[in-house]
């Protein structure tokens, strides 16, 4: 199975043999890859019933629960790595979820679309809500509840005492962006963060 480019990048950041909890795992593609190719173990968390069935069909263990309210289910430090991939913008309580992640895992990996991308700013200046490969939905049918720039996001990380160990800025193609590394908030379409409490 071919993994999406951003997931391939994410998979590369996870050490072999880790216990991984993937919050908002969708159909479980990342975990299926990690289990098959990197001797990882772990589980996904998902609330969409069709995605849960898809993950089961891929052989990925999946726990059906609500990230905003039910992460108490997981024990302290029960996972090596907790992943939140393109999900933080859909949460009602992102701050609490980040705190829960820090409680459950040692290393956190968070990937986020960047609302502050130059192209988004230009579109907003023309009076239109940003839409792009990373923000593909119209304003009235988007699952995204939160729109953040990387600068704002990093303030949130700091406020819950999460330290940024690594940041990889992605171009609109989903691949690491060189200009994005220099001016992330302007040229990064998305970013992947490795965080630690």
């Amino acid at each position: 199975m071919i993994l999406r480019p951003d997931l391939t990048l994410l998979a590369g950041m996870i050490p072999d043999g880790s216990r991984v909890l993937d919050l908002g795992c969708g159909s479980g593609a990342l975990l299926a890859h990690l289990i098959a190719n990197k001797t990882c173990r772990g589980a996904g968390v998902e609330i969409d019933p069709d995605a849960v069935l898809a993950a089961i069909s891929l052989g990925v263990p999946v726990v059906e629960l609500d990230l905003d309210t039910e992460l108490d289910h997981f024990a302290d430090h029960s996972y090596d790595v907790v992943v939140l991939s393109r999900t933080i913008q859909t949460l009602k309580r992102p701050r609490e979820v980040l705190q829960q992640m820090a409680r459950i895992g040692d290393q956190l990996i968070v990937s986020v679309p960047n609302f502050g991308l130059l192209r988004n700013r230009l579109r907003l200046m023309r009076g239109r809500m940003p839409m792009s490969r990373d923000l593909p939905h119209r304003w009235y049918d988007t699952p995204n509840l939160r729109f953040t720039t990387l600068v704002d996001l990093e303030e949130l990380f700091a406020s819950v005492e999460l330290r940024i160990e690594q940041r990889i800025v992605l171009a609109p193609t989903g691949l690491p962006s060189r200009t994005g590394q220099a001016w992330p908030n302007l040229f990064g379409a998305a970013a992947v963060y490795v965080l630690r409490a």
Partner: protein
Amino acid sequence: MGVSVPPPGSVGQVELQMASLFTEAEPLVLANGEKLGPVEVAFETYGSLNERRDNAVFILHALTGDAHAAGYHAGDARPGWWDNLIGPGKPLDTDRFFVICANLLGGCQGTTGPSSINPATGTPFGLGFPQLTVADLVEVHRGLLRHLGISRLLAALGGSLGGMQALQWGLSYPEEVANGVVVAASSRLTAQNIAFSAVARRAIMTDPNFLGGDYVSQETNPDVGLAIARMMAHITYLSEDALTEKFGREPHPDSREPGFGIDFAVESYLDHQGQVFLGRFDALSYLYLSRVMDYFDPFSTPTSAALVTQAPVKWLVMSFDTDWRFGTEHSRRIVRRLELAEQPVTFREIQSPWGHDSFLLEVPSYHATLRAFLDRALVEVSQ
């Protein structure tokens, strides 16, 4: 009237089979050290075992179930108790899976239980039958598996007390169980659960015909007590909404004015459930098997899950949102304990209005989950 042409998706006509396991010389040694042998086991199978002998799924029944899970006995109009799950094209597709279901130890539907004749004395065991544990029930199922020449199950699957057996089997003998499916079960009964069982047992034991458990040899039966036990338990199997939807406050058709008979439709229903139960269930089995559930506590010690940590089983745990007998919190506890034991666990809370009984019903998202999980199990075993 029997079913001459089975409906589509049915396994058709089936027969109860018997196996004699263990002997007086090589008895079953129970968890408490007592011995039983021989143990007669009633079972049924559906589908066929493949050449690699790796497509067997063991169905574990609940407190009052039996070995007849699917298909029709000759002359019967009603199929087995889990016929909606088992058959060609169904989630437990008998064209691909070999399905085994056995009456459990301590039962009364063919397998040795407290009302069976004790071969040593020629009289029924009665209250002299040893106390059992879920682990003992599993040992007998393992005996049957050896008898059938199968060394490893594709899956052990059960609801309620059946789920407890699936859990125990996987924890104790992880190398024998590739996948464990635990539905609407509990790893430790609450005080409320035990309280309900206590009232049921008291109803049975204070029935004047109970005779200290000797009713079989005295050719009588504690009908009143057993029916009351069943009526009360049945209330706990359904949600309040399910009872409201079925009966509301409808009066019983024969009811004319308020009295102390059967005034409401729900009373008639419970009375019927109690009476039907008398024809198929034994009071001593009720005592013994309800006690088995009371004491079940498979994660009681820090090393309880050590074996399965060494050889992980893939688990599917499911609960139903309106089940108040073994509600979602019971299943979540199982999931948390399995996660601590580093098991791959899938968990879903299924929405269904029918309460605990939902595990026996064809709830679409429930069956879709079983289908996806079992299909994947078959893929993984052939990889």
